[in-house]
């Protein structure tokens, strides 16, 4: 399987300010994109911890609250040990938030998990077979339910799951929301010169100015994947 990854910060922001995370393990066949919410602080760290927890198999949809606890403890340990001004302490008290979409490929099947507005697309012969968890571009807004780094924020959190069958030659795309909204609306994605294309989409206001993350997974055309 072939994995290509792009991480592009919001226009006007530096690489250090990018708050998404992309993680994968070809050995475990697990792939994830997480999107840290800009209204919270230390969201990139939270997004990274979530994406890594998923790809290492430590985040299960049916045991989510339980599985999140050690990840939350890791986040808290990292941020609470710092000497911070009042506003950062207030952000730490509230916690960080992130969307997560994860994909696991197993024998003939795939399994996906999602919370928030990061998306997965399953493509065969250039046709979109499945969009998950958002299927209508109108569903994207700026108030999604996201995974909080404080357990008290997650009482109403729902994680969605989806299973499907894959075939040799299929493609899977994992995206953060701004790119996913454009893809779902216009079914457009230019992999060649991707960075320049993203810049153009932003300039033409066809894409919201936000961090862009893309994981492109191409399954081999022959059955021995």
């Amino acid at each position, binding site marked *: 399987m072939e994995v290509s990854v792009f991480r592009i910060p919001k226009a*006007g922001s530096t690489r*250090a*300010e990018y708050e998404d995370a992309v993680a994968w393990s070809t050995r475990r066949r697990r792939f994830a994109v997480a*999107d840290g*919410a*800009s*209204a*919270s*602080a*230390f969201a*990139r*760290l939270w997004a990274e911890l979530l994406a890594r927890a998923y790809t290492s198999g430590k985040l299960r949809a049916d045991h989510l609250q339980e599985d999140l606890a050690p990840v939350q403890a890791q986040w808290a340990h990292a941020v609470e040990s710092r000497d911070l*001004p*009042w*506003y*950062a*302490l*207030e*952000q730490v*008290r*509230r916690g960080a*938030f992130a969307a997560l979409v994860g994909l696991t490929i197993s024998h003939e099947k795939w399994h996906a998990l999602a919370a*928030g507005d990061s998306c997965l697309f399953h493509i065969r012969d250039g046709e979109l077979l499945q969009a998950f968890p958002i299927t209508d571009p109108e569903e994207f*807004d*700026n*108030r*999604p*339910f*996201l995974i*909080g780094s404080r*357990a*008290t*924020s*997650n*009482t*109403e*959190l729902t994680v969605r799951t989806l299973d499907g069958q894959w075939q040799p030659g299929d493609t899977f795309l994992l995206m953060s*929301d701004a790119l996913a909204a454009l893809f779902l609306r216009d079914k457009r994605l230019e992999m060649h010169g991707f960075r320049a294309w993203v810049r153009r989409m932003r300039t033409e206001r066809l894409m919201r*100015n*936000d961090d862009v993350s893309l994981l492109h997974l191409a399954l081999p055309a022959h059955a021995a994947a």
Partner: protein
Amino acid sequence: MAYQADISRANPGCFLFLLDQSGSMADSFSGTAGHSKADQLATIINRLLASLVIRCSKDEGVRDYFDVGVIGYGARVASALNTGNGPIVPISRLADQPLRVEDRVQKVPDGAGGLVEQSVKFPVWVDPQAEGGTPMTEAFKHGKDALDCWVQQHKTGFPPIVFNITDGEATDGDPSGAATALRTLGTEDGTALLFNVHLSERRAPAVEFPSSDELLPDSFARRLFGMSSQLPPHLQAAARQEGYAVDEGTRGFVFNADAASVIQFLDIGTRPANLR
């Protein structure tokens, strides 16, 4: 379309707060014992400023998404901040220069249906003050002067948002004309938005973002409503997302209520639904 400009560090937004610090603010607020309108005003403004700062606070510090000014009016009309450097300062300067930071106790949901007490940081920039008349007309003129300069320097920016927090009783004539003059200031993205927050000693129910003055209890409230800007469509949609019942006539006016939600109406990125 107006009111669509991205708010970013390269293109910051601007908040100007006008605070009634007149003698009448020493009267009690909405019948509550022990709390004056001046106390209530100080709580509201300090909370508004804190939510603005927190909204801009990131891993590396506070990003200058906004410029902020606070003008008090009572015995005199002057900046109520001790940050120096003119009436309007970048939010990061405000963040680093509160008068003090208090520890207060707040009840927050424990995640299991109950409440738990948590210590929160409460920065104070403005202490309660109540002295002299209510030169509201003068305050609007002062505000217009301060913003004149800002809009010249930020021609493509989101237009300034002005909050006037008062008990409504101007003593230097009808402020409506000065308010209109202030609302005509603008950038290429639209004219300045004026929000009025009316604090009253009346035990009348709170009113938030009404579209008519029918439910307002007195002539002061109706006049302030009349001076308030209509919410542009973009902010109407954001207000609706925050759970307010708004329509095309909705104005930026609240009676005996907090107004911190207005800050959340402005889009500077994703705000999770479960971030309270």
